[in-house]
């Protein structure tokens, strides 16, 4: 994976929908994503929702831990950049997120 400072960030993939409900459920809320042709909904909850929310807000990998920590009320070192990167990579593999085009 590219280093945190060099990563261009993420955006919702074309053909996918997303509904953000920060106040739902556990701390961090829920974020729902779905491919719009099949409609199968994936639910991100708690910290996972918070990470995806920060990515969709345009934060790069270097900024996401601080954004997540602020939302969840924890210390920044408690949010492991490696775990954040793995989750976002999983969402890219799912098809929900795409790496932002730098050009």
């Amino acid at each position, binding site marked *: 994976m590219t280093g945190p400072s060099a990563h261009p960030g993420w955006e*919702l993939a074309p*053909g*996918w*929908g*997303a*509904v953000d*409900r920060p106040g*739902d459920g556990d701390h961090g809320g829920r974020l*729902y994503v*779905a491919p*719009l*042709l*099949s*409609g*199968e*909904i*994936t*639910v*991100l*909850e708690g910290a*996972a929702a918070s990470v995806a929310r920060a990515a969709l807000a345009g934060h790069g990998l270097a900024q996401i831990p601080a954004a997540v920590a602020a939302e969840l009320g924890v210390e920044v070192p408690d949010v492991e950049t490696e775990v954040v990167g793995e*989750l976002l990579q*999983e*969402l890219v593999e799912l098809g929900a997120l795409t790496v932002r085009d730098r050009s």
Partner: protein
Amino acid sequence: MTSEGGTAGVRDVDLAVRVELCHAALQHLADLHGVDLLHVKGVAFEPRWRSSTTGGSDADVLVRPSQVRRLVRALEERGWQRRSRFHTGSPFGHAQTYWHDHLGYADVHRFFPGLGRDEGTFDVLWSARDVRLLGGVPCPVPDEAGQALVFAVNEARNGRPPRAAALGGTEADVETGVLDLVPRVHAEVAWAAAHGRLDAVRDHREHDLWRAVTQDGGRVEEWVARVKAERTLTGKALTVLRAPLVNTEHLANTRGHRPSPVEVGVEFADRVRRAALEVWRSRRPGAGR
């Protein structure tokens, strides 16, 4: 992270979330097939132009009339299941309902009851459209005057008190915008109904139909009004022919299974019995409105 079909289960996805994603999915499909859609009612509208605070239980869209077949074909190719037909869905014959296993119900309108059925009416609303982000997808919606008008006539159609359906308390520019819009989208009768002034449009062919739906008329009265409201002789003849037929899709929806020939027969006989009873009651001495 859980998938709706996996450990999270359907119960974990709120209806309001499904409806919003349903709007997004309809717009995506429309974009792929070059279809113009206006998203109407519920979450597509500003909160003050919604009938319920929850935003409704389905996604409603108004399709450019000349592109309805294209959208319907696209929906059915993508596995959306039709649950009602245009001519059986309501007295106005305006919408066809679809079901999606993940996204729930969508109502596809070929026109909006109370507004014109023509391409020109859609063009008027389309030319003044706004955009609302639903499920992360930009969705065209009527502008504020269009939303206010659709809300008012929809409230009237659902039998809500006329004064509640009117635009009392709204700012002057919105009301001016609506009053300007009414004749351009041929909404005079529905607008009169929304204000409890149907008598002022008594000569209009749609008057009786609006009286029947807003004053909870009987089924026979409604069918007579439907025939009268049709613009062409062919339309009138088709409406007469459909009147006694059983709405098998409605029957399937209420019973939870495809009705058998016996069930359809029983329903047909019951329809005839109820119609005869209604006619007899309406002709008794002292009956009438």
